[in-house]
């Protein structure tokens, strides 16, 4: 069980890279017997993640089996580092001292004669708990490295995020009949509306046709023929009720002085045109010439 804890020149399993740079020189392994300058100690202290990390380093460097750790030399070496660090007044985490105590305790327990083991049982090795922790920690340490080797977002790759221009699509408000009704009710509530604002269905139809007629005449005017024959204003396929409404709308427009009806003489065609058009069309228009 006892083997000499002789540091060898073998490359330590986990120290393939220099673990610290001291005065610009890579330090591949810890100077053991030389005087260690306090600066270097400070760098070393930072290089280790804690006492387990330091212990693993010492074990791997000596190339000994973690399941059969020679406790005496390991403890001696560990204490040497800790003492050196304390001597340099470095702020040593309490965990390092706790670990020192643990090592010393294990070492002394191994010197004691083994208590008689129960039949069929092997007495527990005083190092068992330490070994379990060392193995578990090393496993996590290696896992951390393989996680680090995976491609990380933003470090090893970038997400694709093509621009979406929201304004390319214009969202138009939706309006329902209820919205219109509510708006009208809102107006009524404002109370300024009196009876004549009540609108019957028939009137609404007439109003719609007023718009239709005005559009017909406007379009005719835009096409250079502002005068439209009365008959051509009616779509006979739409049935009598619509024709009546259309005619009523026409009369209402004439009453509101929005269109002008004209007839050159009796029994000749009747023409309509927008009242507004008379403002900018020739005054002395000869209706007779249109006939034909």
């Amino acid at each position, binding site marked *: 069980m006892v083997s000499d804890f002789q540091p060898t020149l073998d490359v330590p399993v986990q120290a393939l890279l220099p673990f610290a740079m001291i005065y610009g020189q890579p330090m591949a392994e810890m100077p053991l017997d030389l005087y260690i300058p306090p600066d270097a100690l400070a760098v070393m202290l930072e290089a280790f993640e804690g006492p387990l990390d330091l212990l693993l380093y010492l074990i791997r460097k000596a190339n000994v089996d973690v399941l059969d750790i020679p406790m005496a030399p390991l403890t001696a070496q560990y204490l040497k580092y800790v003492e050196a660090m304390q001597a340099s007044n470095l702020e040593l985490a309490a965990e390092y001292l706790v670990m020192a105590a643990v090592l010393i305790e294990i070492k002394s327990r191994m010197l004691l004669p083994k208590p008689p083991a129960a039949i069929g049982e092997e007495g527990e090795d005083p190092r068992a708990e330490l070994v379990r922790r060392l193995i578990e920690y090393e496993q996590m340490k290696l896992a951390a490295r393989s996680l680090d080797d995976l491609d990380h977002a933003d470090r090893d790759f970038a997400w694709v995020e093509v621009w979406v221009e929201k304004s390319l699509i214009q969202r*138009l408000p939706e309006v329902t009949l209820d919205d219109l*009704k509510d708006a009208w009710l*809102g*107006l009524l509530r404002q109370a300024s509306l009196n009876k004549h604002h009540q609108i*019957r*269905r028939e009137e609404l139809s007439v*109003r*719609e046709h007023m718009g239709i007629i005005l559009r017909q005449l406007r379009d005719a005017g835009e096409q250079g023929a502002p005068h439209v024959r009365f008959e051509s204003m009616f779509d006979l396929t739409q049935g009598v009720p619509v024709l009546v409404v259309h005619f009523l709308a026409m009369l209402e427009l004439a009453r509101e002085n929005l269109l002008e009806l004209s007839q050159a003489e009796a029994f000749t065609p009747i023409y309509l045109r927008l009242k*507004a058009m008379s403002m900018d069309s020739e005054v002395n228009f000869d209706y007779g010439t249109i006939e034909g």
Partner: protein
Amino acid sequence: MEPSKAKRVLEAALLAAQQPLSLRDLQSLFEDVLSPDVLRRLLEELRDEWRDRPVELLQLASGWRFRTRAEYMPYLERLNPEKPPRYSRAVMETLAIIVYKQPVTRGDIEQIRGVQVATQIIKVLEERGWVDVVGHRETPGRPALLATTKKFLDDLGLRNLAELPPLEALNQTLELANER
């Protein structure tokens, strides 16, 4: 670097960029300087390669950028549905007056609403294609007469205005409501 490889680098950078990349930005991708001419040519080739794809490479004032094509927006919208916007009360009341009292002038609307009607409000309805000018009233100033369009009826699923909620019934509801 091979131009074809450089083009792929440009493509990767532009696809991942969160803002337009200027020519100078794109230059900085390469250790060896790429001449502005070569860079521009590669970008144009890239734009052509993407011509028939759902994403397009655009040259904007501040640089080059990929953008999803407008025709895909209706689908993309469904991923993050936003509440449709609503018209303000002023717009809705103006619309209601034009609907029920057409043809009306802006003055008519102002008289009924009791407040000035901002040009913007009429414009919103005109741009929507719901309202247009059908003539002018022969009074001083010749104010425009506004009426609803066929598109308005179509968008509201109506065949004609007579299908609108009748106002008589509305007014009665209101009177009843006020009596209570």
